[in-house]
């Protein structure tokens, strides 16, 4: 029986990474995720597993260190919050274009600009629609509990290595800062040099017994660059087919459907409790992968319901994907708070009543 611990989401994530057998972390402090680097420095994994931990000079340097580590076939990651993740976008584009597996964590805070340190989900577009330049995607996972902050570390890396693509954990200040019970995974050994050579024959590990390996995203021949792009797109279609994940709660025969991810999905579960007391039947779809987006699952869950409310800590971003999912067959509305403010459950219920029931 594994020991149950009480931890912040950010701390659980750091522990999970060590236990996954991570090879390296490169990051730069920013609220509300600095506990990731602080926990790693406190745990000193270089003394135990041999994992590298480095406080870089900037987010720009950090993401390029991750790019390099991934190029070496290593399990490497970085974490930041919204403004820092904006700085990383070029590097994420390079990682995607070089077909490298890497894990990036964004514990979102309110923006735009320097904004606030309080929770937000306003980086949905940035995370799911590219962020950096060019036609690429990162797999985006949205944890809604401390346990998921822990579990999505291994899920993220496994998917990143399987598809040779960046994976992002898109959390927010609530999930990062709150403490909950968590069961950490068993410590796994880091892969040996030989195992990395076998798993990642493309990695820059020194050209012993093989031809030179080159990690690059540069291809000046347009036809070859188009072929590269088509290969990326085939991978993305594969990911969409195999890796779309969501949680459905009481969606069968519901009057209205809520769609929310991360911390907002937690608040929506309370909204469902409050609504039930008033005799309103609410269902909830919680996308776990924001890209690929669970469009089909939402379309199925929406059949027969009178309306959909997306609840987001932004001005209405995910709602665009929900509208596309139901193809205007069901009315879709949005409720959100901005700038680091978080709606209370009764506030969300009142919004639902105003937008759909008492309109």
């Amino acid at each position, binding site marked *: 029986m594994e020991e149950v611990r*009480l931890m912040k989401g950010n701390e659980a994530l750091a522990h999970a990474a060590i236990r996954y057998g991570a090879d390296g972390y490169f990051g730069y402090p920013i609220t509300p995720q600095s506990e990731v680097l602080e926990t790693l420095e406190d745990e000193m994994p270089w003394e135990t597993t041999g994992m590298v931990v480095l406080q870089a000079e900037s987010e720009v340097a950090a993401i390029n260190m991750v790019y390099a580590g991934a190029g070496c076939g290593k399990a490497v990651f970085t974490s930041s919050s919204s403004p820092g993740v904006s700085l990383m976008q070029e590097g994420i584009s390079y990682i995607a274009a070089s077909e490298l597996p890497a894990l990036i964590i964004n514990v979102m805070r309110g923006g735009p600009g320097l904004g606030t340190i309080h929770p937000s989900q306003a980086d949905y577009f940035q995370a799911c629609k590219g962020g950096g330049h060019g036609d690429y995607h990162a797999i985006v996972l949205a944890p809604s509990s401390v346990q998921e902050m822990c579990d999505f570390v291994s899920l993220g890396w496994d998917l990143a290595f399987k598809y040779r693509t960046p994976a992002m954990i898109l959390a927010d200040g609530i999930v990062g800062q709150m403490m909950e*019970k968590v069961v950490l995974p068993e410590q796994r050994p880091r892969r040996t040099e030989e195992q990395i050579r076998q798993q990642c024959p493309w990695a820059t590990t020194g050209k012993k017994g093989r031809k030179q390996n080159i990690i690059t995203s540069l291809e000046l021949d347009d036809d070859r660059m188009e072929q590269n792009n088509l290969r990326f797109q085939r991978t993305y279609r594969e990911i969409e087919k195999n890796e779309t994940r969501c949680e459905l709660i009481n969606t069968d025969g519901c009057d209205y459907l809520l769609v929310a991810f991360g*911390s907002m999905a937690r608040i929506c*579960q309370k909204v469902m409790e409050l609504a039930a007391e008033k005799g309103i039947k609410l269902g909830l779809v919680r996308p776990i992968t924001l890209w690929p987006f669970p469009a089909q699952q939402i379309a199925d869950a929406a059949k027969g319901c009178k309306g959909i409310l997306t609840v987001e800590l932004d001005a209405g971003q995910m709602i665009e994907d929900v509208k596309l999912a139901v193809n205007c067959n069901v009315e879709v509305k949005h409720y959100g708070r901005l700038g680091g403010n978080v709606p209370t459950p009764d506030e969300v219920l009142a919004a639902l009543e105003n937008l759909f029931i008492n309109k």
Partner: protein
Amino acid sequence: MKEEIIIAGFGGQGVLSMGKILAYSGLMEDKEVTWMPSYGPEQRGGTANVTVILSDERISSPILNAYDTAVVLNQQSLDRFESKVKPGGVLIYDSYGIHTPPKRTDIKVYHINAMEATFELKNNKAFNMIVLGALLKVKPIVAVESVLKGLKKTLPERHHNLIPMNEEALHRGVDIMEE
């Protein structure tokens, strides 16, 4: 069983760590727990608050609009959270520095003099444990033994010498609530 608690006061009063100790105590009793702080460097010296939920079942939202119990340790927090206590709920406040006491009559209001008790104990670090003792007297959400067990588990060995002081403060809190 489900208890939704807000603890609020000045940064530096031990608000967040009191919530943490309560959460750990819940963990010792195999309860589901959530600890959600107001966070960030601006809390230092400003106001700090933490929502703690203990439950026998899976906890939904860590963010609440109403609380079963509010523990408020300064005037600002009293002004902000008095109205957020559910009817029939409990409000505990420390009298130190309070110029406008709570007015609601549909909730149970308790006032304590924990700050004065810290002066008597000559230990200002004991403040939050005194408040916690007082809270547990009114609302036995967790057993005092679980609090001590939680402390032993979470404090590093080198700080275990602090446990008797904390235990004394906890009992002191129970006592002042009886007064």
